[in-house]
């Protein structure tokens, strides 16, 4: 038979950004003695949880060659819903949180149905729903910040067996996402649809339903991320989640998810989010000028993408077609 060719199973697409990450960790460890410690590592994990959870959900959508720009606004909307339920209607937190997740799912379902029924690009649809969700959230909060009871803060600072609760939530989300993607028919269909929508249709796969479900998951992740974020701040402020969707997309792409669909992993999303947060954490520890943060983040993203692109070009030299959204 054929001589054994490069029959790789696992595309180590993020190995180069991985090396860069290692370099950054080493650099910060030297520059700030407080950096390389368990406490700090946990700190990073806790801080990165909202973006990480969001980028997990985003991965589902990106796999179908779609995009969800409304994630930040949905975070805000679900947080507003939860805040209103707890503060104004006196609901107990334990009942409010499931409602928030449900709201997120509903928003995701709306996104999914619009994208599949209208046949329009996900970019423009989720752009529009982003407007609507932010507006709806501002309506509920009347553009004022809502202060949440201390119970919420307990969610952020509490620990179970020494592990902060948010990190447990993150681990749970990651494990669920990974199983969904690799071990369920739904997950495999996502990859198929992302590779070729037409072939998936011809093969008789339930394309519309699968894509819709991807957006629902993204909505639930947005709500979960909103819950964690809000518990850390113990308040719902009008600019909650503003611009965070781009961070989540960047995290997913840094982790090896392709914007064209068909390629991506849950682990990659987590690593991408870790990347961005590690940099931010390191800058904080070395007392960098706060104005520097976005510059450094931007440069790091550029570097990581540069390395990844160079690597990809080595693997498939014929890829010359470039496209955006």
């Amino acid at each position, binding site marked *: 038979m054929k001589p054994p060719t490069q029959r790789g199973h696992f595309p180590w697409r993020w190995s180069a950004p991985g090396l860069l990450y290692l370099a950054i960790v080493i650099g910060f460890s030297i520059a700030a003695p407080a950096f390389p410690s368990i406490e700090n590592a946990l700190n990073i994990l806790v801080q990165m949880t909202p973006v990480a959870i969001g980028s997990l959900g985003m991965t589902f959508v990106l796999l179908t060659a779609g995009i969800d720009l409304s994630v930040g606004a949905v975070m805000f909307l679900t947080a507003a819903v939860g805040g209103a339920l707890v503060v104004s209607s006196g609901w107990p937190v334990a009942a409010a949180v499931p409602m928030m997740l449900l709201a997120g799912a509903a928003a995701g379902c709306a996104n999914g149905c619009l994208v599949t029924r209208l046949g329009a690009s996900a970019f423009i649809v989720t752009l529009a729903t982003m407007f609507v969700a932010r507006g709806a959230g501002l309506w509920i909060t009347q553009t004022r910040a809502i202060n949440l009871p201390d119970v919420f803060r307990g969610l952020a600072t509490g620990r179970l067996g020494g592990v902060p609760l948010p990190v447990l939530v993150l681990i749970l989300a990651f494990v669920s996402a990974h199983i969904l993607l690799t071990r369920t028919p739904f997950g495999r269909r996502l990859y198929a649809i992302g590779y070729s929508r037409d072939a998936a249709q*011809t*093969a008789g796969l339930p394309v519309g339903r699968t894509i819709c479900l991807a957006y629902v998951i993204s909505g639930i992740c947005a709500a979960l991320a909103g819950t964690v974020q809000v518990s850390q701040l113990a308040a719902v402020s009008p600019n909650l989640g503003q611009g965070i969707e781009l961070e989540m997309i960047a995290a997913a792409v840094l982790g090896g998810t392709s914007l064209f669909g068909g*390629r991506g992993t849950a682990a990659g999303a987590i690593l991408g989010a870790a990347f961005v947060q590690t940099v931010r954490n390191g800058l904080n520890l070395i007392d960098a000028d706060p104005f520097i943060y976005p510059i450094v983040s931007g440069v790091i993203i550029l570097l990581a993408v540069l390395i990844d692109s160079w690597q990809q070009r080595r693997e498939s030299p014929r890829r010359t077609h470039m496209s955006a959204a």
Partner: protein
Amino acid sequence: MSTPTLELAGIEKRFGEHRAVRAVSLACEPGEILGLVGENGAGKSTLLNIIGGVLRADAGAMRLAGQSYAPSNAASALAAGVAFVHQELNLFANLSVAENLSLSALPTRGGLICRRRMRERAAEALCAVELNLDPTLPVASLSPGERQLVEIAKALMSRPRVLLLDEPTSSLTERETQLLTELMQRWKREGIAVVYVSHQLEHVLRHCDRLVVLRDGAVQAVGAAREFDIARLIPLMVGRSLDHQFPPRTPRRMGPPVLEARGLSRAGVVRNVSLQLRQGEILGIAGLMGAGRSELARMIFGLDARDAGEVFIGGQRLPPRSPRASVARGLAFASEDRRHEGLLLDATIADNMSLASLERFATSPLRRIDHQRIAAAADELVSRLSISCRDVRRQAVRTLSGGNQQKVVLARWLMRDAQVLLLDEPTRGVDVGSRQHVYELIRQAAARGAGVLLISSEIEELLGMCDRILVLSAGAVQAEFEREDFNRDTLMAAAFAAVRGRYS
């Protein structure tokens, strides 16, 4: 007697005003291999799509083993026992072989995929096509021939009564084609009815039991395969008699070398290939799939990278990675993937034709484009190449048939008066009538002094058109044949030579 497995009666299908299928009736017995031949646009694919449930017929009836058969979609056709292996492969390269085989019905246990059962199912399916692969491999790592076999395995998994094969050999190597032939004989014995569509007429004549010839959507002739030969088939398909398939060779004077390649190499793909192409010469490149022919052409043109080697045009060195420089020096390249690398499908015919010559139509100082002149030049080429179309300025190239599309690609280079034409499978997916035109064009270009590098998988095409043939095998030049030594068998032997050593 036994009822036919598949019966079609009076099938009609229109697309707007165009009658794609006209009152087609045919029958296929169990264990029979029915060949379906015809030009592009004759309705073969439409007919297969109707049988396979992808399209609905406007009129007529189908019967499957005597029962009424009217599938509403591909899935219900499959459930009824009709499996369709498309020409464009429908596998998902980012999933594993096993996942692809079971995708529409993944075995689960408690909501999760049961990998063991999936692997077993896959191993069984692959066994049926004699493909020895690890089913957990991603399809991306398979060759086109292996992928085609996986597609066939997938179709067989449903234990079909009818198997529809649309150009199955287009991605197969000679060895895999041989395997397919053996499989077809096995299916015969198992009583599966096979409908086999192909442009490769010799193959069809040799391996099918009966033939149906379609022209303009209607059945022109039906009969046992042994009653037909190419000479009889072509007029039935085309509606006029052709004296020979290839334009007559006129003695040509060949000039000095216009293209020279020395020591071209890329690891694992091409090994130290050197060649010379003279003015007015048609040089054929033969070889099996994967021998490195297309890669060689792309390297010469500058589209793909090379590890070593130089290319010279008219004695001057060509920069290694610049299609722009190549085109400027008179090179032309027609990729084998016409739809993705040859044409801007949604652009007009005029736009496509003028794509390589835009500077010619741009007047300084603002580089204003002269649309009138472009349209005029395009019209001239349309009539010269007998391209059937309506309006060069407004008609999108996507609406043209494969043959006409290929002519547009060639027209682009003729408009530029290219001196070296690198043509990769220029007649793939092209109907017989257009093929004639393409051969004429190539001859004319050579007569005017251009050098032509012709890559083709059809030995007859190379034997009929070329002055010289190079045989590539496993990336290296295996043999070179001058016209007087042309011989199908020695050519094939050369193509296989290195391969056998590697595979044993």
